[in-house]
C-alpha cells in the first residue's frame, strides 16, 4: 500500500501495458494473489499473536487482554482498541508535507499532517478498527464479564516491519489470526453482597468486587473472532481492476477500493481512497468479486491456522523467531 519510489514514465507505461494485457510485472493475472506466509502464537507473553508476510510486506500483530471497567455509555460491553506502529524505515514519507506526496504515490490512508508519520499510522489504526471491527462483526457484549463492573479491555497492537504493497490487507489478516489465537482467561467475580459491604467501608470510593483468574490456557474461552472480516484492496490502474498490488502498481493506481469481507462472503465495510473517482458500475463489480476473494482468503487462512495449531511448539523452536 505504501511506496515512496515514484516510477519513471517508462516503467509506468510498461506496467500499464501489462495490466491492459492482463499480465503483470511479476507474471500474475489481474486477480492473482501473492502467497501470504502466516504464523501464530509467536509471542508467548501475549494473549494472542501472529505474523503475516507476503513478498516484502511484513506485519507483526499482538493482542493483550486485561480487565477493566466498561465504558460509561455502554455499561454492558467490552472495549477493543487497535493501534498501528510503523518502523522508521516504513514511514520516511512522513516529512513530506501535506498530501502532495500521496498524490504521487497513490497511497491509501489520506493526508499526513505531522512530520513523524504518526498521523498516518494513527489514521490506519482508526480505519482498521472501523472496517474490521464494526458491531456486526464483533459482538462486544460477549467481552463483558459483569455489566457496570468488569469488562475485557482488548488491545490489538500491529507493528509494520516492512511495506511493499497490500499493507492494509496484510494487517487485517494479521489482526484476524491474532484474535483467533487469543484465549480469554476464565474469571469468577465475587458475589454481590461482598461488593456491597466493601463499598460502605470506603465511603464514596466505590471499590470493585474481588475476582480471581484461572491462568491455565486450557480453561479459558476462545476470543469470539470467527466473524471478523478480512480486507481486500483493489486498485484501478488505467481503468482495469488490479488485486493485491505490489508497491510499483500502487504508485500507478489512480484509485483504490478496500472491501472488508467476512467468512460467508458478506461485504461488511467498503472504503474508497486514492486520487481519481470511480463509477458506480465499477464499484458494484468490485463488491461482487471481493466477496468471492474474501471467502477464499479466509478459508485458506483457517486451514493454515488449523495446520499451525497442531505442530505449533515444534515448528517454532526449530526455525527460530525470525525464520525466513
Amino acid at each position, binding site marked *: 500500500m505504501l511506496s515512496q519510489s*515514484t516510477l519513471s514514465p517508462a516503467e509506468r507505461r510498461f506496467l500499464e501495458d501489462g495490466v491492459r494485457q492482463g499480465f503483470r510485472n511479476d507474471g500474475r493475472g489481474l486477480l492473482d494473489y501473492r502467497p501470504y506466509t502466516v504464523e501464530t502464537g509467536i509471542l508467548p507473553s501475549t494473549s494472542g499473536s501472529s505474523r503475516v508476510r507476503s513478498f516484502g510486506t511484513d506485519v507483526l500483530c499482538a493482542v493483550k487482554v486485561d480487565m477493566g*471497567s466498561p*465504558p*460509561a455509555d*455502554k455499561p454492558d460491553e467490552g472495549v477493543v482498541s487497535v493501534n498501528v506502529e510503523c518502523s522508521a524505515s516504513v514511514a520516511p514519507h512522513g*516529512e*513530506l*508535507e*501535506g*498530501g*502532495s*506526496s*500521496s*498524490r*504521487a504515490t497513490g497511497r491509501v*490512508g*489520506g*493526508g499526513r*499532517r505531522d512530520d513523524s508519520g504518526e*498521523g498516518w499510522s*494513527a*489514521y490506519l489504526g*482508526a*480505519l482498521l478498527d*472501523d*472496517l474490521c471491527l*464494526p*458491531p*456486526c462483526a464483533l459482538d462486544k457484549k460477549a467481552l463483558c464479564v459483569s455489566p457496570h463492573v468488569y469488562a475485557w479491555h482488548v488491545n490489538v497492537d500491529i507493528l509494520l516491519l516492512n511495506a511493499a504493497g497490500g499493507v492494509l490487507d496484510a494487517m487485517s489478516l494479521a489482526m484476524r489470526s491474532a484474535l483467533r489465537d487469543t484465549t480469554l482467561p476464565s474469571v469468577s467475580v465475587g458475589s454481590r453482597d461482598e461488593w456491597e459491604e466493601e463499598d460502605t467501608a470506603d465511603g*464514596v*470510593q*466505590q471499590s470493585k468486587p474481588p475476582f480471581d483468574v484461572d491462568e491455565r490456557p486450557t480453561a479459558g474461552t476462545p476470543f469470539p473472532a470467527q466473524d471478523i472480516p478480512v480486507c481486500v484492496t483493489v486498485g484501478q490502474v488505467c481503468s482495469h481492476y488490479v488485486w493485491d498490488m505490489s508497491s510499483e502498481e500502487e504508485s500507478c493506481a489512480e*484509485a483504490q*477500493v478496500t*472491501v*472488508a469481507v467476512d467468512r460467508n462472503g*458478506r*461485504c*461488511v*465495510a*467498503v*472504503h*474508497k*481512497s*486514492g*486520487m*481519481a*473517482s*470511480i*463509477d*458506480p458500475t465499477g*464499484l*458494484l463489480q468490485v*463488491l*461482487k468479486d471481493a*466477496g468471492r476473494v474474501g471467502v477464499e482468503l479466509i478459508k485458506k487462512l483457517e486451514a493454515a491456522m488449523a495446520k499451525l495449531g497442531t505442530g505449533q511448539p515444534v515448528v517454532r523452536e526449530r526455525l527460530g523467531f525470525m525464520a525466513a
Partner: protein
Amino acid sequence: MDAATYRPLPPDVPPAPTVSFGAAERSDGRTNEDVRDIEMQTGPISSAVGSAFFQIGKTKALSAVYGPRQSMRQARTSSSGAVNIDLKFAPFAVPSRTSMAERERYLVGMLSEAFESIILVERYAKSVIDITCIVLEDDGGVLSACFNAISLAAAHAGLEMTDIVTATSLYCMEVPSDTSQNVVYLSDLTAAEEACWLSSGQCTEMHVGIATSGSSICFLHGTGSLLNPTCAEQLLGRAEEICRAIGKEMRACLKAAYAASQNAAPAKTTATE
C-alpha cells in the same frame, strides 16, 4: 468513570426514534427518504480567501480556505501543490465534553484524501492550500456536512477544481416485519437516530461523495452487514439523487455570490489587461 457525572437533560428530549415503513413518518416528521432542510452561505469569513457555512438540520459546519501560499516544508518533489485540512469540533458542539481529537483526526484523514483528487493541485506548484473546518453543532451527519462546507468554500475561494462534489450519508436496516425480512432505506439520520441504531450494529451506513456533473464517486466509506451489491446499488442510486440536488443548490448559490460581487464592483473591467 467511577462517579457518575451529572449531565442536564437537554430541554426538548426528542422521543425515542421509531422506524416506519412506507410513507409513515420518522420521529421528527420526515419520511425515510427525506433529507433535513439545508442552508448554505458563502463568504461568512471576510479574512479568508474563500469561506462557506453549511447547515443540514441542526448540524452546522463553517469552513475557510487560506492560500495557496508558499509551502513551508522542504518538499522536494513539489511539482504539485498540497491540500492541508484541519478540522475542529467546537467545544459546545457535542453534548458531553469528551475529547474529540481522535474523531477529528479520523475525519481529517477521510476528507483530505477526497479533496486531493477534487482540487487540481498540479496547478498550484510549490504551494500549500490550508483549509479549516469547524463543526459548530453536531446533530448527526457531520462527515457529509463538513465535506459540503469545504467543497463550497473551495469553490468560493476560486480554487481550480474538477467538479462541485457533494456528499451525503445513507443507511439501510433489516427490520423483521410480520410478512418478510424488509430492508428499510433511510437517509440523513439525526444524532438521536444515529445513537440508537448505528452503535447497536443493526444499521448499515454509507457516506458517499459524488461529482455532481459526471456522477462518478469521489469519496466512499461504508460499514455494516447489508453491503451486498443489491443494497449498495439502491444506496448509490439514492445518494446520486440527493448529491445532485445539493450540487444544484450550491451552483446557484455560487453564481448568486459571483453576480453580487460583480454588481458591487463599480467598473466591470476585465481582470487582465
